[in-house]
Each structure stands twice: as C-alpha cells, then as structure tokens.
C-alpha cells in the first residue's frame, strides 16, 4: 500500500471529506447524502458546545459507571512470567461493554437533532443492547436489525433488547449476519429519512461516523492514560485490543497514537485459520474496497463480491474494518495480528480461571495474543489489554464448542 512519508501526527484525520489516506469517504446513495451532511454539521455543533460535553460526562459517571477500572491482572501476569498485564475493564460498564460510550453520544445527538426514531445494526447484540438501553433512558423508539444467524446464537441479548422495549428485526438476506444487518438498517434509513437517526455501532460507515464514534470511544484511552500514569508513574509500553469494526480498539489506541514508543496491536478474528476461507480478518486476508459508505479493507472475491466472514465471536464476524484502522495498518503505526476460534476459547478459559473474569469472546481474541506476546517481554513492560465486554452472552456458544470439557 501507499505509505506516506513520516507523519508529524497520527491524530489529525480525517480530512474534511472524511478520508484517512485513501480510506474512508462518503460512498452512499444520494437519498442519504443530505442526511449525512446534516449529521456532520450537528455533530460539529454539539462537539463545540460545552453543555453537550457536560451532560455527556454526567451520564458517563452516573449512568454508565465511568471511569472503568484499570485492573492489574496479577495471576495472569505471574503465570505468563513477562509483561505486567492490565485490563481496561470496559466489561464493567452499564450494559456490559464499551459500546455504550458511543451510543450515549449518538443518542444525545439524535435527541438534539429532534429525531425520535433510532435504528441500529448489531452483531453480538452488545451494540443493540446499548442502543435499546439509551433509547429507553431518553424515551426514543428503537429498532434493531440483527442477522437471523446472530439472533439464534445470541439469544440472551435478544431478550435483553426486547425487555428494554426495542423491536428486534431478524435479517434473512445475504449471509444473515452483521453485514446484512447493516444493509437492512441502511435500507430503513433511506426509507425513513425525516424522523430517523442511524446509530452505527463501530468506527465504520460514511463520514462522519468513523470520526464521531472514535471521538465518543476515546474516553477509554483518555482514562487509561490517567490511570496508568497514576499506577505506574508513566505511560504503558504496549496496547492491545480485538478488532471487528474496531471501535473498542480505536477508543483505546487513538489517545496514544502520537506516543511513538508505545507498541500498538490490533487482533483480528482468524476463525478456523487464515489459510481457510472461514475467518474474519479483513486486513490479513482482504484488500481495499468500498462497502457500507467507506473505503477500507474488505473480504471479497476476485470479482469484488463481498465474502462471508466467519468467527466464533459474533461481534467480530464482519468482512470489513474501520477506515482509520486500515490507514493505521498501512502507515505501520498499528500492528495487526489475529487469533483463531480455538485460541480465543483457550484464552477465555484462562481468564475465567486465573482472574475470575468471564470475558466476551471478542476480547478473548486479544487475550490470546497477550498470552503469546507477554512472556517475551521484560517484567517492567506494561501492557494494557482492552477487556471490551463481558462474556455472559457467550456462555452458551462456549459450552457448545467445548462440549463436555467445560
């Protein structure tokens, strides 16, 4: 890929047209273009309004339960015998994952824009649950599109969304997973333009979504800077997070991008293995293309048809990645790794047994690489893993995969 000359900062993107290098942009139907321009304007105004930030900070503290702890995983650290491992406990947020940070911001924006009807897509259901939660809190109508395959494997979250008053629409088209849920949400938006706000769950989609979702998720990295400085008297040596679309990773990484000595690792889902067709690693196994409003790395065939992703984790089961991550890969600032279903399952079990924390299968992918990297690092190497969500939702599928071994 085109590698630009040495950059002064990795934190200035996107440009005014929503580009991160060649990635990003606004590849949407004309019907949606005026809506996206409205959103961009409304977000810029909200961002500049101290009252918006004050209200948001209040909800983050009193409703979401922030700051989330930065927890030293002592037994994991001892067992691996190398780097000092911290978990950023996004699993302890209200609704059980990092998703709520972004949803709070978008729902407050929807309210500000006078849009009473909220639509969202969801894969694992965590973004759907967060959206249903915030819609209940702010008194807005909520419709969540979810692939029918995901509806079947994430039943607890479907029930949570319903209990919170959301309408869950199973999507039967295409591969019946996250990408198809996103297609269906876009079809809804193009039909209901006047009253509907599309609450996207990750750092992808047309500009300004990748930037806006990133900004809302940066609370993760900003808190981590303060917390690690308080605990260690310095910044960490490395950061690691799982990447589907990449919002939890971007939230952790972005505030550290210009600290050039910090190693940053993104972990994609390798499914049955990168040498098979059954994975969801769009950087490792895809190439740049255009889908869902942005140019980014995508899984596709030689004719530009999007192929189905596979991961044991519904939240990583998407054939693309946020455009800013694509750019961070090409510039070399973030190193992209991957972990298979099997490796994630092993890490999941280790985390349960050593730390008393049931992680979601998504961050279990990042933990799988921690298990490999940490032993090779010295004991004064401080590593922060984004524990982006809790694993209660995954217990049924873990039990099924492990059979009698659980």
């Amino acid at each position, binding site marked *: 890929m085109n590698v630009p000359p040495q950059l002064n900062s990795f934190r200035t993107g996107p440009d005014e*047209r929503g580009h991160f290098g060649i990635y990003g*942009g*606004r*590849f*949407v*139907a*004309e*019907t*949606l*273009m*005026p*809506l996206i321009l409205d959103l961009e304007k409304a977000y810029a105004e909200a961002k500049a309004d101290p009252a918006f930030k004050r209200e948001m900070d209040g909800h983050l503290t009193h409703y979401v339960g922030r700051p989330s702890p930065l927890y030293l995983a002592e037994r994991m650290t001892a067992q691996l015998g190398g780097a000092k491992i911290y978990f950023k406990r996004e699993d302890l947020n209200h609704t059980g994952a990092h998703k709520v940070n972004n949803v709070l911001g978008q729902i407050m924006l929807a309210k500000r824009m006078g849009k009473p009807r909220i639509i969202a897509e969801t894969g694992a259901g965590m973004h759907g649950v967060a959206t249903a939660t915030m819609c209940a809190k702010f008194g807005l109508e909520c419709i969540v599109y979810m692939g029918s395959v995901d509806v079947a494997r994430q039943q607890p979250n479907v029930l949570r969304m319903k209990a919170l008053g959301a309408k869950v629409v199973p999507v039967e*088209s*295409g591969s019946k997973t996250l*990408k*198809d849920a996103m*297609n269906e949400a*876009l*079809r809804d938006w*193009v*039909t*209901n*333009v006047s009253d509907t706000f599309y609450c996207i769950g990750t750092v992808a989609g047309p500009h300004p979504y990748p930037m806006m979702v990133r900004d809302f998720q940066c609370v993760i990295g900003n808190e981590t800077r303060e917390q690690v400085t308080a605990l260690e008297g310095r910044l960490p040596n490395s950061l690691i997070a799982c990447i589907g679309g990449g919002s939890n990773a971007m939230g952790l990484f972005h505030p550290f991008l210009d600290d050039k000595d910090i190693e940053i690792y993104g972990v994609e889902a390798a499914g049955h293995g990168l040498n098979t067709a059954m994975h969801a690693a769009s950087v490792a196994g895809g190439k740049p*293309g*255009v*889908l*869902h*409003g942005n140019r980014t790395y*995508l899984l*596709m065939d*030689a*004719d*530009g*048809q*999007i*192929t189905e992703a596979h991961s044991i984790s519904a939240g990583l089961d998407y054939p693309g990645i946020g455009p800013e991550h694509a750019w961070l890969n090409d510039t070399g600032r973030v190193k992209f790794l991957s972990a298979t279903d099997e490796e994630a399952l092993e890490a999941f079990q280790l985390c349960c047994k050593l730390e008393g924390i049931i992680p979601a299968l998504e961050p279990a992918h990042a933990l799988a690489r921690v298990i490999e990297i940490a032993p090779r690092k010295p004991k004064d190497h401080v590593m922060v893993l984004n524990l982006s969500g809790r694993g209660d939702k995954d217990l049924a599928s873990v039990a099924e995969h492990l059979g009698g071994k659980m």
Partner: protein
Amino acid sequence: MSSTRIDTRFADLKRQGRAALVTFLTAGDPDTETSLAILKALPDVGADVIEVGMPFTDPMADGPAIQASSQRALKAGQTMVKTLAMIRAFRAADQTTPIVLMGYYNPIYIYGVGKFLTDAKAAGIDGLIVVDLPPEEDEELCLPALKAGLNFIRLATPTTDDKRLPAVLANTSGFVYYVSITGITGMAAADPWAVTAAVSRIKRHTKLPVAVGFGVRSAEQARAIAQAADGVVVGSALIDALKATLDGDDKAQAASVGAVTKLVASLAAGVRSAKRGGK
C-alpha cells in the same frame, strides 16, 4: 463530450413528443444466456433505453426483488467479464439502443476503473449509474467516465433540495434519474402529482431529460409518469415477472423471456399513450 446513444435517443423521442421507456434487468439473472435473450428482445417490444444491473452481494439501495435477482445471478456465476461480454453480444446486432450499466462501486473498483472504462466503452456501453457514488466522490469514477466518453447518470431524490441540486447536476450527463420516493427499489408507488412537481423543479436547474423511477409497476402508472417526465424507469416489476416463471431451483423456463417482453410491451403502450402537456 460528443453525443452518446443516450443523447441521440432522448433527442429523437423529444421530436416524436413522447417519453422514453427505460427498462432494467440484472445481468445473469437467472443465467447469462437467458438474460442475454431478454436483453436482445427488449428493443423490439418498446424499450427505448436499457439499464443492465451489475449484480452485487450487498445491494444496499435495493428492495427484496432486486436483492434476490442479484443473488440468483451471482449464484449462477455471473461476473463483470460476463456482463461486459453480454453487452458486446447485444451490440453486434443493435447499434442504436442505449445501454446503461447500473450497480454499486466495489465491483468496478476491483475490476480497475481505467480498465473498466476502456472495456465498457469498447463493449458499446453508453452510460453508468453507480448508486453509492454521490457528487462528493466524483473523482473516483464520474470524472474519468465523462473523460472516457461515457454518460454518468446521477440519481436525484426527494431529499435533494434546491440548494443541493446544482451540485448533483454539475457532472451529470445523458439524463437525470429522479428517484420518486425515499426508499429502496420496488416498494412504494410514486404519487403522479408529486412526481410532476419534482420533475418541474429539476427542470428549472437543467436542460437534461428527466427520467423517473422507483415504484412503477403498471402500464397505467407508466402512462401517468410519462405525462410529466421524459422517461419512465421500470425495474422490480420486470424482475418479478421473470421470477414468477422460474422453477423451484431458479432455472429459466420456456416462458421466461416472453413474460418479460409481454410486460414491457404493455408498459410501452402505456408510455406511448401518455398525453404530453405543453410540448
């Protein structure tokens, strides 16, 4: 830019005082041979301009009929190379009917924009409609296409207000495709009064012909739209007519081509019976 078959066709029809019937089919639905047979049969039953859909796995602006149609084509092995070959085969026998390729950007991007434009022009394609390329992304394909001598036909929608219309029309050529509803293809029907108002609004900003689509299913609707617009686009209704003839494995039957041509003939009669005001 020299005039294309699209420009010539609309100019001829204007002289005749009638609107164009613009018909859509998905290349390779349900297989390449059948869709080529349909394509070849369309001009004789009254199609004035033909839109050929390039199938895509994720047709975000399309309703269930065209989604399923794209999936049938892809399942049967349709590729961009085969789609371009279909147009070449059509062009060997028909030098005048304009062909517009319609679809989404990724298959073109992956084929390679430069190579695509060269091959499309050589195959006898006259224009492009690419749903997910708004004016904000004109440098991607629109400007190179215009330079290559192809029309780039833009969609204007009910959300395209007077302030935005000039930007949408700036690099549009051939004709303007007015999407008469906010929504996906093949769903709600357009209200003829609203269409009339919208067409006059667009015409205040451009001299290009304005064709209207989304939701047109019957000869009566086609006639009503043809009274206000320079062209009537019909897509999902034709896909549905084709689909109704397929067997349980989505295989074409003896009646498949005829079902489409019969509906096109009826729509053409509707368009031709329209009374055009003030011309």
